[in-house]
């Protein structure tokens, strides 16, 4: 049964990929990318990698589609024809794929209990992590404690991505973004060809886009708190089930981005200012690194949470809680920063 699901999902995946490659409308490509992420998330679920699936769904389908769309607002919506034939690319793909397949020939069989993966390091994680680290979710133990330093690295990667974007594109100053969302690219073309009697009706929409989106606003107001609440749940539930700082940060950010989409970016920027976000991003990294440093001052190694409390397990718990918080804050701040930078880059709709 599982293999049928696998086959179906994989064939959908292939179809989506081919469609993405063929399609010239970037908007459609982005939508297909979202589908692609969703499919791969489903595949991860069938492989029992629920945490990965969760992250993929939150980041791939959620945030990255929005970010891509906002980036799309800055460019053309159709891909230009490539100047040369795509056969070279095909050759590249075929060669690389062939090498990869060749490489898998001597791999231990998938799920083989005797393969080194299942006999070496993982054994200790499974056997000892509940009384060495604590959380029932082993993924969290590995992620936050055994290999907590890698996670710090990943957090900084996200931080870097955010500030790289700001460094390259730059925040506009407050006065510079008077332009609102939902304003059509140019009035002339979109209205000239339409009948005049309808034109008047929509005149108000241009100036106050939110006013006629009453339903959206109300639903948004209903759901945004729930989204934020859910984000907090994911944040603090990471010890027990799928979840943790990365996913929580993304979900929290998506709540804010939703707010910005419905109520206008400028309003959102008054609620959560770019400066505040910058400080939050910094704070996220500092919380993580700070925990490590505190561990050092208390006599342990960097990120050795055992020393944080009298009882090692409590120490681990506290440490993981804090660093997940740091990750969450950082991811949230960076995601929103990215959205702001794209959204305010140029006149246009998101």
């Amino acid at each position, binding site marked *: 049964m599982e293999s049928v699901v696998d086959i179906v999902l994989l064939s959908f995946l292939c179809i989506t990929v081919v469609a993405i490659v063929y399609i010239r409308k970037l908007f459609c490509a982005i939508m297909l990318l979202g589908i692609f992420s969703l499919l791969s998330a489903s595949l991860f679920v069938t492989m029992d990698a629920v945490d990965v699936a969760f992250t993929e769904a939150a980041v791939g389908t959620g945030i990255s589609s929005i970010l891509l769309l906002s980036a799309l607002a800055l460019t053309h919506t159709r891909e230009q024809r490539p100047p040369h034939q795509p056969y070279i690319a095909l050759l590249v793909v075929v060669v690389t794929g062939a090498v990869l397949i060749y490489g898998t020939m001597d791999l231990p069989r998938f799920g083989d209990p005797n393969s080194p993966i299942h006999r*070496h390091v993982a054994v200790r994680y499974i056997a000892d992590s509940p009384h060495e680290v604590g959380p029932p979710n082993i993924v969290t133990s590995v992620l936050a404690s055994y290999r907590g330093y890698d996670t710090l690295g990943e957090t900084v990667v996200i931080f870097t991505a955010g500030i790289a974007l700001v460094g390259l594109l730059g925040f506009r100053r407050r006065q510079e973004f008077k332009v609102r969302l939902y304003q059509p690219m140019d009035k002339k073309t979109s209205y000239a060809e339409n009948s005049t009697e309808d034109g008047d009706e929509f005149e108000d929409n241009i100036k106050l886009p939110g006013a006629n989106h009453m339903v959206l606003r109300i639903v948004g107001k209903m759901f945004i708190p729930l989204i934020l609440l859910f984000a907090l749940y994911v944040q603090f539930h990471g010890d027990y089930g799928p979840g943790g700082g990365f996913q929580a940060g993304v979900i929290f950010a998506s709540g804010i981005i939703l707010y910005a989409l419905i109520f206008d970016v400028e309003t959102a920027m008054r609620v959560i200012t770019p400066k505040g976000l910058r400080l939050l991003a910094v704070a996220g990294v500092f919380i993580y*690194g700070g925990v490590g440093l505190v561990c050092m001052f208390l006599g342990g190694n960097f990120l050795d949470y055992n020393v944080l409390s009298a009882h090692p397990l409590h120490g681990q718990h506290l440490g993981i809680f804090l660093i997940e918080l740091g990750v969450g804050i950082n991811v949230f701040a960076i995601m929103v920063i990215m959205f702001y930078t794209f959204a305010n880059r140029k006149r246009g709709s998101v």
Partner: protein
Amino acid sequence: MSHLPILQVIIPLLAAPLCIVFNNRRIAWFVALCATWASFGVSLLIAQQVLQSGALSYDIGGWPAPWGIDYYVDSLNAFVLLIVTGISALALPYANRSVEQEIDPRSQPYFYSLLLVCLAGLLGISITGDAFNMYVFLELSSLSSYALIGMGPRRRALTAAYQYLVMGTIGATFILIGIGLLYSLTGSLNIQDISYQLHANNIIGSGNRTLLTAFAFITVGLSLKLALFPLHLWLPNAYTYAPSVITIFLASTATKVAIYMLLRFCYCVVGSESIFQLTLGQIVLLPSLAAIIVSSVVAIFQYDIKRMLAYSSIAQIGYITLGLSMSNHSGLSAAILHMFNHALMKGLLFMTMGAVSYSVGSVYLTDFRGLGRRMPFTMGAFIVGGLSLMGIPMTAGFVSKWMLVQAAIELGWWDVVILILIGSLLAVIYIWRVVETAYFNPLLELEEEEIGEAPLSLLIPMWLMVIANIYFGINSAIPVEFAQQAATLLLGGM
């Protein structure tokens, strides 16, 4: 328990966010300056300890090695750390004025923050004993360097950064695939442990196809990162259009760290006695020689001097990989030593380029007319750097080139010796073009007269570099000691 190894990385890593707390470029610069100097100090301490008492190791999070991540510093690491921190400690004072001119003031705090992240990434790669951790920090350094290159003053910086991004990402992905395959074979991510498992399970000798593929991916990925000859195509644009400081920093550190990774993977994971060594040597040999000759000839025809030096960098990387391909003790030590010396001379040469572009605004060959008289100190430094590049005695470049020639003779590779020397002659030609223009081509009367010497904050680091180039040319005991220890260590296995 000494915390030195972790401090090495964590200082710049945590100073990076600090840079953007206050949206002020001076504070950001100062923070970055303090962080780089501190990490330079730390690397000196580490180097001293390693020389005195052998390798250092540090378990992060208190988890022992195969389960957690550990830092492992031996003489090879320590040497690379010294190179990276040393160059950045000199580049940061230089950055103040240069960045002020080249980069939008609002972006400057972000610039310094990214620079520190890049530094931390490079240090993290060099110091870690864990393959995946290496990849994480590789991502860190690559991501920040894409952005840093993209911040360059000319518009083409963006396309250059984009191309670097695509190539770098392919490289990083390949490395990740390689590490993943290794993990699936051994169940471990720790480099020493991978090596142990490979040997213990008899995977190495058996011609295991997964292992072969893993290594092919890793070597190709790293060849991209270190710009080995046919995969160097991203480098000229990236170096040409990046901000001056970034060119200095990346040219003297990033490729060196990639070479370090290659050394680590080839010698510490597979082991020098294994079959790979032979083929790896042969595989790397031809691209290295091609790099030396072709890139040098290309450099001769360049008009943008920064671009010329970028091509020269590719040729110099060819020398390093040539030493590596010899797979004997003297070749390896020559390669490792040349990493250090190339960092010194290329750092110096790109510093002079930064100064020229600061004062003149461009580094086209025609803009060098009469600079010998107008910027005597800068052009003097350029000449010293050029001499070092050619491998003239009494400069740092000579020592490593000499060792390389000796290693080639030891193997009886006379043809290679001749190619090395031809490469040096080509270097004479392309450096000479600049010197000739600067000293013997008079300035046109029409041109404006304001061009003067670069400010002191650019000249002092530059001349410190000049002194280093000459000092390590005359007394190269310390780097040679390091290089030879590292070579012994690599050949002896870990």
